């Protein structure tokens, strides 16, 4: 039964089926194909029984978790600032948040290569302050990668939260204050619950984006820090193991998918219904 109202969405649905759903199904199909031409879960078993590969999988998920955690940490003061800011400052914060997004991910990544390098400002400043004895490089380390990813993914968390803060209900905050709550308790019981759905949405975006950011991972992480996207690339581009690459992609999709599903379910919690 085709309803008139849905007619306009049909081109998009057709496009998605043709260029997203079907390749994905194709990918799933390929992943089930063994080296000897047989069908089965052999590729998955091979991947999961290889300790190195398992390490890459858990390392990738851990990277996503760490980046999400530090993005939240970095976002909190900005969210607080945005909440207390007047109209002008809010506009300024918003522009500063959006501006980096107008630059390509590759450009931002290479900017971080300069900043994190041995002769970059971070190393030189710490050296000048006498906090370190010799220049150091944060490149090719997970610390450096996390720093870069936090900056790159930060807007994905900030933007949905800012959108909610713009129309947040201040009366509840006043009610909390009249009831004797201190500033922090009042904020966390009146405003924070309103932004939780936006925070969960932001976490989904940050996590998915951090675990799959091939460019940043490979440029800043280098050849020694391997995450799943590079692993897939190696299987395809170097080893020409298409079925294995497909299996790894499906695993990456499934593991991030499960986490995203979990966060989405959390947003549907009864306690959050008033803020949807």
């Amino acid at each position, binding site marked *: 039964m085709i309803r008139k109202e849905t007619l306009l969405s049909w081109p998009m649905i057709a496009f998605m089926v043709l260029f997203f759903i079907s390749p994905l199904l194709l990918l799933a199909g390929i992943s089930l194909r063994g080296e000897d031409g047989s069908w089965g879960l052999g590729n998955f078993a091979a991947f999961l029984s290889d300790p190195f590969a398992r390490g890459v999988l858990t390392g990738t998920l851990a990277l996503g978790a760490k980046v999400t955690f530090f993005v939240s940490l970095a976002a909190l003061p900005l969210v607080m600032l945005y909440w207390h800011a007047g109209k002008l400052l809010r506009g300024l914060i918003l522009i500063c948040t959006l501006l980096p997004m107008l630059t390509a991910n590759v450009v931002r990544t290479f900017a971080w290569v300069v900043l994190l390098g041995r002769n970059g400002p971070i190393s030189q400043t710490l050296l000048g302050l006498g906090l370190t004895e010799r220049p150091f490089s944060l490149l090719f380390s997970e610390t450096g990668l996390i720093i870069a990813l936090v900056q790159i993914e930060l807007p994905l968390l900030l933007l949905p939260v800012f959108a909610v803060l713009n129309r947040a*209900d201040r*009366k*509840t905050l*006043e*009610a*909390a*204050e*009249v*009831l*004797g*709550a*201190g500033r922090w*308790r*009042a904020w966390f*019981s*009146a405003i924070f*619950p309103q932004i*939780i759905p936006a925070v969960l949405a932001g976490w989904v975006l940050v996590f998915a984006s951090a675990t799959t950011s091939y460019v940043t991972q490979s440029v800043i992480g280098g050849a020694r820090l391997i995450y799943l996207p590079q692993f897939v690339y190696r299987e395809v581009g170097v080893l020409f193991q298409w079925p294995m690459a497909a299996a790894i992609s499906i695993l990456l999709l499934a593991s991030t998918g499960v986490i995203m599903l979990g966060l989405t379910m959390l947003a549907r919690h*009864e*306690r*959050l*219904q*008033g*803020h949807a």
Partner: protein
Amino acid sequence: MADTGLQISNVDHSYEDKQVLHNVNFDVPDGKVVALLGPSGCGKSTILRAIAGLITPDRGRISLQGRDLTKVQVRNRKLGMVFQNFALFSHMTVAENVAYGLAHLPRQERKERVARLLELVRLTAFANRFPPSLSGGQQQRVAVARALATDPSALLMDEPFGALDRALRAELQSELVRMQDDVGITTVMVTHDQEEAQAVAGQLVVMNEGRVEQVGSPEEIYDHPASLFVNGFIGHANQQHATVTGAGRLKTAGGAEIAMNRTLNYLPGAEVIVTSRPEDLSLSLTEQPGAIAARFDRAVVMGRFLTIDATLPDGTAIKAQVLRDGGARPGKGDAIWLIPDTSRLHVFPGNNQIN
């Protein structure tokens, strides 16, 4: 200064360049309900927010039981407040909402307190529900219970019935009066609805354009309005331009000569506005001395009464409410005469516009 009740003295406040409160003064005696009444934008909510401490007035003093509140922070004022849209915490259950202000109490005492308050507002069965799943009236009762839970020294209510439909409002108003009798808490309520103010409060503070126009009981304000604004705002008031012709004598713009039964504090020749309540006019189909000539427009039956709409010769509308009798009713455009009860006419200076 007395050490009881809530006292508002000489409060001024401005938002940016606009002064919204002009020298506001009124007292709320201990345990009494006072309603701040006025049209929207008259500053009544601003005064309530100043009492709560949500804004700091530019000048003036707010004291409660002799304690100056002006410098006390919001959270230390120990007041209860019910907000217009109730401002409940929608991620907390009804019981958690009520317990919010009781964080300092030991668990057991807190539980007992919450149970007692939920009983007071008859919501015990809803303790574990979340506010979005409750009706407007139930949410309002949660807000009241939450505000009363901390045992505040005064209760502030900002349009507490504004978000409810009409039928529910009357029910909750009498509920509030019942609860007020039980608890006996000093209460300030903001409303733009005069019926609501009269139903709940023993004392009204009528405000207009940031000024207090009159403070008094509903009877005082209805029977002896201090200004033309109060006269027109509380109940209906017919207004007519008139000129003072002698001691206690007026001539209206329409030509009616009215002899008041009292002297007026106006010099002969002064321009005044004379006002009458619809129920203080009686209808006559023949010319009478002291009667106001008008043209009949329509009559509406209101139970035992007949509400008559008529037009004065100068085009001003006039309303009269008379007891229905079996007599003939005039037709549209007929000449009628309205006889005022001169003891209940009010006279105000005429230099302001009729509105």
